[in-house]
């Protein structure tokens, strides 16, 4: 990924050494989101009483206590199910579009950033709730939190590229609104 010399890869933004929309950059995020979906889906099945037990190697009844807590059922559907939906949103918004989507579909990249960022923040909040409110931990919940936070850095280079492209549209006197939805038509530097 590091290119300290030579030409930037195809589709790289102005002044960048990488193309944040390349598949090499996006596939790991999609993979993480898929793993998050599988784990959160498993936890949701326990919360929906489809499964009667839940895997917990370290904290005894920790997972059970946390997954059946009031906080986890604060919303109409249990929190792990919401998390699973969030990972689907991450994977789908991460997968749509080609390798120039940072400038062709800024709305999609920003949506992707919104799906990844707040989901990560919520999972950190849930990690804090575990010991502070329930004096316990839930191993798989911690794993999904790590996955959520791990996606933020790799996802936000693409968001940065889109925001920079929109800024250039503004600096040229163009319509940021129109570019946000329809993309910018800037030429890739040769």
């Amino acid at each position: 990924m590091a290119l300290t010399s030579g030409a930037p890869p195809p589709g790289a933004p102005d002044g960048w050494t990488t193309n944040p929309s390349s598949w090499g950059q996006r596939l790991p995020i999609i993979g993480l989101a898929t793993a998050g979906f599988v784990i959160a889906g498993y936890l949701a099945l326990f919360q929906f009483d489809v499964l009667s037990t839940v895997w917990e190697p370290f904290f005894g009844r920790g997972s059970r206590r946390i997954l059946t807590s009031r906080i986890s059922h604060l919303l109409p559907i249990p929190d792990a199910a919401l998390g699973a939906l969030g990972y689907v949103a991450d994977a789908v918004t991460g997968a749509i579009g080609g390798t120039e989507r940072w400038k062709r579909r800024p709305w999609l990249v920003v949506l992707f950033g919104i799906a990844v960022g707040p989901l990560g923040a919520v999972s950190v909040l849930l990690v804090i709730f575990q010991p502070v409110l329930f004096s316990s931990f839930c191993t798989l919940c911690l794993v999904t939190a790590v996955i959520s936070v791990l996606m933020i850095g790799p996802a936000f280079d693409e968001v940065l590229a889109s925001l920079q492209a929109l800024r250039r549209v503004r600096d040229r006197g163009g319509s940021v609104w129109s570019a946000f939805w329809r993309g910018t038509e800037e030429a890739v530097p040769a």
Partner: protein
Amino acid sequence: MIGAVAQAVAVVVGVWLMFAPAVLGYGGAPADNDRIVGPVAASIALIAIFEVVRGIRLVNLVSGAWLVASALLLGYPAAGAVSAVASGAALIALSIPGGERKNRYGGGWRAVFTGATEADRRGRR
């Protein structure tokens, strides 16, 4: 590389804080404090491992400073206070260096707010 390694070490410091109350045996406000600051600091550092968002590490200067201050304010037992001060000092030290840069990002986040300069476009960071 040093930048990413420093953030990885900061992740370990944050995770330690999550388990310090259980390991060192204390509860109450000091334990809650560690269990709140720990995940926050670990998450900030885990994000900052990635070069494009390395700047967010500076938030952990606040996490570290608060830990040092809280060791005096929240009535930690001796072992817990040592842990809090050491963890806080470590977080501060690990959040100062940005590390060398491997990639260029067209001026980074600054370029979004102030516009890219000619140097940004040519590939200066």
